[in-house]
């Protein structure tokens, strides 16, 4: 057995896994997107490209723009809050580094929906925050509506996806040689100059990876907007979800899914190209 054949053999389980659980279902989604439904709502395969025509309806433009805006806002907030956290852990975490990283991932052991509902318990009309405001004599009646707003949705998304930003930045910072920062200081760089000329360029790949890991899933998220959102937070994920589970038309939902995946795929290609370009990076 040549080593080449051995490698191919080792690839088989992974390839089978992808084939069964990604490629095949994806093929089914494509087939559904071109079909119609019978009286029980079951997909009937056929050739109905007009399902895609419907995607171009200007009606959906605000939904797409809103999803993109929420995703960009969430990504920026994650970056602004996540970078300092990653920096502190990587630079000053000492022997507690691994423990701190575990603590950051810890909430992920709880179910996604439970975590979003926790925000409802905190921010709701009769929630913890309104209770505190009431206790210190701030306007308690009517309570302040934190939930059912776009802010609640973006806040929930930031909470959900923050670890995806922290981890790659932390990894990049940890890889960076700390003596580079000392060198920057030795050359009379201010802390800001040292950061912008040394640390930031050295970690830019981690930042981009974090932005992709946060940005792409938030575009398609629907549960956060559904629980914490209001009438003006309808995202593309909610639109797709409603086609399958709330009385909508599944072939249209499938067509939307394909189009959304194609758009995210383009973003992904852009990322991969930028990640492989050697011009970035300090060292």
């Amino acid at each position, binding site marked *: 057995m040549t080593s080449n054949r051995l490698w191919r053999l080792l690839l088989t389980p992974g390839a089978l896994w992808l084939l069964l659980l990604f490629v095949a*279902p994806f093929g*089914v989604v494509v*087939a*559904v997107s071109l079909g119609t*439904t*019978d*009286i*029980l*709502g*079951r*997909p*009937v*395969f056929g050739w109905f490209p007009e399902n895609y025509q*419907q995607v171009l*309806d200007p*009606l*959906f433009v*605000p*939904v797409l723009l809103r999803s993109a805006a929420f995703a960009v806002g969430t990504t920026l907030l994650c970056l602004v809050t996540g970078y300092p956290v990653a920096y502190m852990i990587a630079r000053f975490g000492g022997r507690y580094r691994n423990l701190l990283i575990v603590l950051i991932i810890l909430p992920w052991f*709880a*179910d996604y*929906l*439970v975590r979003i*509902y926790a925000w*409802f*318990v905190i921010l*709701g*009309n*009769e929630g913890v925050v309104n209770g505190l405001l009431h206790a210190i004599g701030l306007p308690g009646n*009517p*309570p302040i*509506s934190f*939930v*059912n707003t776009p802010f609640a949705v973006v806040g929930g998304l930031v909470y959900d996806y923050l670890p995806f930003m922290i981890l790659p930045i932390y990894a990049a910072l940890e890889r960076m040689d700390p003596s580079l920062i000392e060198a920057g200081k030795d050359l009379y760089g201010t802390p800001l100059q040292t950061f912008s000329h040394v640390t930031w360029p050295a970690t830019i790949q981690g930042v981009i990876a974090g932005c992709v890991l946060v940005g792409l899933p938030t575009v398609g998220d*629907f*549960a956060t907007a*559904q*629980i914490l*959102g*209001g*009438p*003006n937070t*309808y995202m593309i994920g*909610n*639109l797709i*979800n*409603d*086609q*399958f*589970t*709330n*009385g*909508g*038309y*599944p072939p*249209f939902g499938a067509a939307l899914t394909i189009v959304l995946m194609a758009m995210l795929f383009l973003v992904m290609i852009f990322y991969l190209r930028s990640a492989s370009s050697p011009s970035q990076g300090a060292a």
Partner: protein
Amino acid sequence: MASDIWKAAFNRRDFLRGSAALGLGGAAAYLAACGTGTPTAVAPVATPHYPKAQIDGDLEFFNWNQYLDPVTIKKFEKNYGVKVKQTNFDNMQSMMAKLNAGIPYDITFPTMDFVDQLVKANALIGIDHSQLQNWNEVPSYFNNPWYDPHAFYSVPYALWTTGLAWRTDHVPDTLAGSWNDIWTLAPKYSGKLFLLDDFQETLGMSLLRNHKDVNSGSRSDLDAAVSEILKIKSHVGKFSTDDITNMNNNSAWIHHTWSGDIYQVISGATHPEIWRYETASEGVPTGNDTFVIPKAAKHPGTALKFIDFMLAPENARANVNYFGYPQVTTSGIDEYQKLVAQLPFLSLTLDTAIHGLREIVPTGSKLQLWDSEWTKVKAG
């Protein structure tokens, strides 16, 4: 703690957990359904296969959450020495996805319009009324309901109306018993008025206010209904079917809701007297759901026994006391009248149910029309 959150957060019409299920089970079931060849509607068979009402195994039970008295279920288990294995669904679409995937549930609870579809698609096991000792408890209209000729395949379960609930402590206004109350109150109680996240109910309500057919297939009727909703959309707190929770936690002061759900809010409230419910003079959407035995059932005998057990007067009464909907049996309706004697606004007679407006889930090209109109409401 977590389970308390779940209990508080979900009710029978809630579709949120459906969304969670969509991610995994729902999608899997849906995709599984794709693989079963070309599904086409088949006319109902003239002589359905009738199982005997005798225990033939544990019962695979598929229902809304908290929609049948758990104590009565325990009693059934004890009396017949079987287990009732419960699974919940969150809306009709997710229930249908599981049935379409051929999962062998022995008993489930579709609403009338979905029974109509299931009967036409020959997806149910026939029910021989002579096997049911308590069939005489079922009101005569339901021996031949519109959705299931001669009641070959279904036994009626619960009745409801759709209306408007409000709490008089925050909303002291006098309401007019009209769907127009929503438009009158919305600006004044901005953010505190919630509409159902259900295209049949919310588009239907706006159609009725415009004096149109609640099941209209006309694009201009629907366009007009949508533009009326968009006028007040900025004042709507949320489109949600999580109505019990929204009312319980003081998020909603006015809620487009179902009669049984407001009953559950009232029965659990510290100040039940603040709540009111009205139905609208332009039209009251009314419906009922049913017990059915899906084709894939492995224990239809036990299912039949269970249906008979639930029709028995003492069990129907206990169940009505638990879930607050009139169960469609002579005793069940009688028990409901006693239950709402102090809440005249919740009174619901069999006559209302029979002559009420039925919302029929759209199919085919009409579904696409309704879906795109509803998206205008949600997306705009």
